[in-house]
C-alpha cells in the first residue's frame, strides 16, 4: 500500500531535483497522455522499512536537454550517450532518494545502482502502483513507483 500523499511527494521530489540541479521547471505535475515513444528509462530499486522501485522515463530529447543543463554544456552541444546515461542514472538516484527521505525520515534505506533499461517489457506502466506524467519546460517525463511496505508500523 502506498503511503499517504505519495503522489504529491513524488512530484515534489522530482520538481526539487529538476529545479535545483537541472535548471528545469515542472509546468504540470499530472499530465494525461501517451507514454513517450522510444524512451530513455532508468530504474532504481530501494530497500529499507519499505521496498520497491522507481522508473523514470523520458524522450531522448528531454534526456539530452537535462544532461546538457546538469553538465553545463555549451549551447547546442549534444551530450554523448555515456554522459546522458550517467546523468539520467544520477537523476533517478536523486529523485528516488529525495522521495524516500520525505517518507523514511528516521529509517535507513538502501538504493540500488541505477540501471538504464532497454527492454520494452520493463516499461514503467506495467509495474507501477503510482504513475505520474510531468510536463517540463523542456520536455516530458513519466514517473512510476511500486511500493511494498515491509513493516507497517515503521
Amino acid at each position, binding site marked *: 500500500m502506498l503511503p499517504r500523499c505519495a503522489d504529491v511527494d513524488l512530484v515534489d521530489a522530482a520538481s526539487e531535483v529538476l529545479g535545483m540541479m537541472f535548471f528545469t521547471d515542472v509546468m504540470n505535475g499530472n499530465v494525461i497522455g501517451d507514454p513517450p515513444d522510444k524512451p530513455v528509462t532508468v530504474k532504481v530499486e530501494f530497500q529499507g522499512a519499505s521496498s520497491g522501485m522507481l522508473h523514470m522515463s523520458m524522450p531522448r530529447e528531454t534526456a539530452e536537454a537535462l544532461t546538457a543543463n546538469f553538465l553545463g554544456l555549451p549551447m547546442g552541444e549534444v551530450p554523448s550517450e555515456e554522459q546522458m546515461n550517467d546523468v539520467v542514472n544520477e537523476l533517478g538516484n536523486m529523485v528516488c532518494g529525495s522521495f524516500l527521505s520525505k517518507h523514511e*525520515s528516521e529509517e535507513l534505506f*538502501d538504493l540500488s545502482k541505477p540501471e538504464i533499461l532497454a527492454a520494452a517489457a520493463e516499461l514503467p506502466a506495467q509495474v507501477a502502483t503510482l504513475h505520474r506524467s510531468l510536463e517540463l519546460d523542456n520536455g516530458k517525463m513519466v514517473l512510476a513507483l511500486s511500493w511494498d511496505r515491509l513493516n507497517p508500523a515503521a
Partner: protein
Amino acid sequence: MALRVLIVDDAPAMRLYIRRTLQMSGLALSAVFEAGDGKEGIAVLEREHLQGAGIDLVFTDINMPVMNGEEFVTQLQQEERLREVPVLVISTDATKTRVLRLRELGARGYISKPCAPEMIRLKVEQILGRDYAAALC
C-alpha cells in the same frame, strides 16, 4: 588561501557537477582531485600527504562500489595522518539516522541532494571558515 579539494563519487556526472559548482561558487581553488570510490580516495589522500601538499576538504558520496562513504570516513579516522582532513558528505539519503551515523563516524558536515550551489559554498565556509572564500570577479 586556495583550497585543495578531493571529490569522491562513482558517478562521473556528479563529480563534474560538484567541480563546476565549486569553480562557480567563488571559492578559491588551487587543485581539485577526483576518485571513483573510497579506496581510490584514500590513495589520493595518502599520495598528496606524502608529497607535502595535502588535501583541505573532501566531498564524498555514500553509495559507491568497492569502498562506500561510511567505510571511507571510518578508514580516514583510523589513519592518524589523515583523520584531521574534514569530510563533507553529499548524498540523496537525508534520513536523520544516516546523518547522525555519519557524524558519529567522523564526517564534519552533510549536504542532501538536491542541493543548490549556494548550499555547497555555505557548508564549506561553516567547516573551514570564511577566509577560504574568495570574491567572485
